[in-house]
C-alpha cells in the first residue's frame, strides 16, 4: 500500500511533465552560432489560421506576424470576424503589449502565450552560445541554447536542413514542445505548440506569406 501511495504521488508530480531524451544525445566538441530565425524573412508578413486550445476551451482566429526590422517582430491575433484580440511586439530582448481585449487580459495566459511565441521567433537568442549535439541515429543537428532559466533544444533535420522541433526544457523535463511541420518553400506551413504541464495547445496553419 505504501508503495502504491508513493507511486501515486510520483505519478501525480510527473503528470504533464515529460522526461526528455537528452541523456542519449551526444555533445559535439564545438560550439556554433544560433539557428537562423524562421520568421526572419526579408521583413515579410505571415498569416496563419490559428487555434488556441486551453483546458478544452477553444479560441480561433487569424495570427499575423510581421518583421518590422532586424530584431523587431509584431504579432497580432484577430478573430475570423476581424476583432483584434492581442497585439504583441518583440524587439531585441524587450516585449511590448500594444493591445489586448479585456477578456484575454489574464496575466498568466498572456505571459505563457508571449513566452511561446518568443521561443518560436528565436529573436532574443543573439549573442548566446549554442551547444551542439547529435542524436543516436545522426538524423538531427541539435543546438541547445539557454533561454530564461531553461534550455531550448532546436532540432534541425540533417537531410532537409529544416528546424522541425523546438523543445523548451528545464533540466531534463520537457515543458513545451514546438513542432514545425509540412515545409513549403523553406517555411513550415503547420506549427503546433504543446505544453506538457498545462492543457494548452496552439496550432498555426499558414494561409499566406
Amino acid at each position, binding site marked *: 500500500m505504501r508503495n502504491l501511495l508513493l507511486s501515486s504521488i510520483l505519478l501525480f508530480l510527473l503528470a504533464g511533465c515529460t522526461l526528455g531524451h537528452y541523456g542519449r544525445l551526444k555533445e559535439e566538441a564545438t560550439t556554433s552560432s544560433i539557428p537562423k530565425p524562421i520568421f526572419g524573412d526579408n521583413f515579410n*508578413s505571415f498569416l496563419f*489560421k490559428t487555434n488556441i486550445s486551453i483546458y478544452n476551451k477553444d479560441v*480561433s482566429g487569424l495570427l499575423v506576424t510581421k518583421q518590422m526590422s532586424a530584431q523587431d517582430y509584431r504579432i497580432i491575433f484577430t478573430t475570423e*470576424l*476581424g476583432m483584434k484580440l492581442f497585439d504583441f511586439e518583440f524587439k531585441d530582448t524587450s516585449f511590448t503589449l500594444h493591445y489586448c481585449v479585456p477578456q484575454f487580459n489574464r496575466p498568466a495566459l498572456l505571459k505563457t502565450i508571449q513566452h511561446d511565441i518568443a521561443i518560436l521567433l528565436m529573436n532574443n537568442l543573439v549573442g548566446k552560445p549554442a551547444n551542439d549535439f547529435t542524436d543516436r541515429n545522426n538524423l538531427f543537428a541539435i543546438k541547445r541554447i539557454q533561454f530564461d532559466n531553461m534550455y531550448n533544444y532546436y532540432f534541425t533535420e540533417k537531410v532537409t536542413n529544416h528546424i522541425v522541433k523546438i523543445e523548451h526544457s528545464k533540466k531534463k523535463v520537457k515543458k513545451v514542445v514546438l513542432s514545425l511541420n509540412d515545409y513549403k518553400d523553406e517555411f513550415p506551413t503547420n506549427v503546433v505548440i504543446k505544453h506538457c504541464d498545462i492543457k494548452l495547445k496552439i496550432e498555426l496553419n499558414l*494561409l499566406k506569406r
Partner: protein
Amino acid sequence: MKRLLLIVLSSLPVVLFAQVPKGFTAVKDTVAFKQKMESQSKLVNTIESDFTQEKYLSVMSEKIISKGHFCFKKINMLRWEYNDPYKYIIAINKDKMFIKDNGKVSKYDINSNKMFKSINEMMMNTVQGNLLSNKDYKAKEYESDKQYLLELAPVQKGAKDFLKVIQLYIDKADYSVVKVKMIEPGDDYTSIDFTNRKNNQPIDDEKFIVK
C-alpha cells in the same frame, strides 16, 4: 471564454472611420429617415449575399482579405460563412448558436449569457439596418446622392474599449446595407462589402443548423 466569443461576434458586421467621408452631409429629417428604414426592413423576410471582409492593421503592409456568403431569415436566423482563404461558419438559429471551425461544430445557448443576447440582437439589427433604435449606440445620419451613412458610436464603456464607431452604408434605392465598417480605438478597422444581394428568396431553415 463565452464573453470573448460574444465580443468576437459583435465585430461581425462592423467597420469604422474616424471622420465622416467626403461627399456626405447630415440628414436633415432624421425622423423620416428612421421611419423609412424601419418600414423598409419590415418588407424584408430573407437576405442572401456574398461578402468581402478587409482587415486593416496599420503595422501591416497588406490588408487581410476574407470572402464568404451569408443568409438571414426572419425571425432570428443567420448564417455567416467564410470560404476563402479559410472555412469558418457561425450560425444563429433563434436561441442557439453554432460555430464550425476546422470541421468541429460547437453549439451554444444564446440565452445562457446576457452578452450573448445583446450581441445576437446587434447582429440581427445590423444586417437589417435596424440599429437606429438601439440605445447602446449614439447615431449620426449622413447622406450623399446614392447612399445614406449611419454612424454609430457605442455608449457603454466596455464596448468603447474595442470599438470606436460603426459605419453602415445604405443604398438609397432599396435601403439595403451595402457596406459595414468597424473602426477600433487605434483606427485599425474591419470593413465588409456586400455584393449579389437577394431579398426575399426562399431559404430553407436547415441552412441555419450546422452539422
